[in-house]
């Protein structure tokens, strides 16, 4: 059976689900950020797969993937800076213990 669009979409859905589980279930803030990177990568695979199989001559999906990578880089830089700032103030990066703004 040759590889088609569905294979890439299912692979991307599996990676996204793993990332979703990590975001919801983990307590370490850095692991949560890593899981978000996994989810962004899964979306990128979907974009490139659509670009390759639906409109192979337009490359629009690859342009979107480049912008997603840019936003992911900015998000990682700011997110890790926030985590380090929180660690300086509270000596922990456990997301369940950072509850100052929790009602």
């Amino acid at each position, binding site marked *: 059976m*040759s590889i*088609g*669009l*569905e*294979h890439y979409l*299912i*692979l991307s*859905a*599996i*990676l*996204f*689900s*793993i*990332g*979703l*589980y990590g975001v*919801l*279930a*983990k*307590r*370490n803030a*850095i*692991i949560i*950020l*890593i899981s978000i*990177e*996994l989810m962004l*990568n899964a979306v*990128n*695979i979907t974009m*490139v*797969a659509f*670009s*390759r*199989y*639906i*409109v*192979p001559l337009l*490359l629009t999906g*690859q*342009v979107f*993937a*480049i*912008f997603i*990578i*840019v*936003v992911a*880089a*900015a998000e*990682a*830089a*700011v997110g*890790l*800076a926030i*985590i*380090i*700032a929180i660690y300086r103030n509270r000596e*922990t990066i*456990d997301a*369940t213990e950072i509850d100052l703004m929790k009602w």
Partner: protein
Amino acid sequence: MGLEIAFWILAVVSVAAALAVVLLQNVFRAALALVLCLMAVAGIYVTLSADFLAAVQILIYVGGISVLIILAIMLTRDVQRGSPSNKLRIPALIVAILFLAAVGFATTNTLWQVSGAAPVEPTTAALAGKLFGEGGFILAVEIAAVLLLAAILGAIVLVREK
């Protein structure tokens, strides 16, 4: 035939590495598994004939973001506590499996209008035309530049010693 073998190997490696990211208890090993997963995803881009994106993936994710993450792990010294789950572990598992089932159902039951045309190769010149050329994404490129500048300034301000 070679493409199929490459896809299956890369798919298995990326899924296994992603599972290792959420299941390993050592935070540092989870970050290394993330690096492996990102490299496998770069290989997946190659099988989709997106050569420029594969190079960008290696340069930015494997070269840049993973170094940032490992640096943050070193700075926070929370490696000893590991990566425990919170009390939402079972509901999170159910949500993830439900999401996977919904997307899988939608994917397999949609009639995709797959085009038979051969992909553009190499993609670098074509992508440059798309990004900077007439009727392209030049406004988005400039907004991305401002976003990156703002993110770098914000990160510096946040981590600077008072």
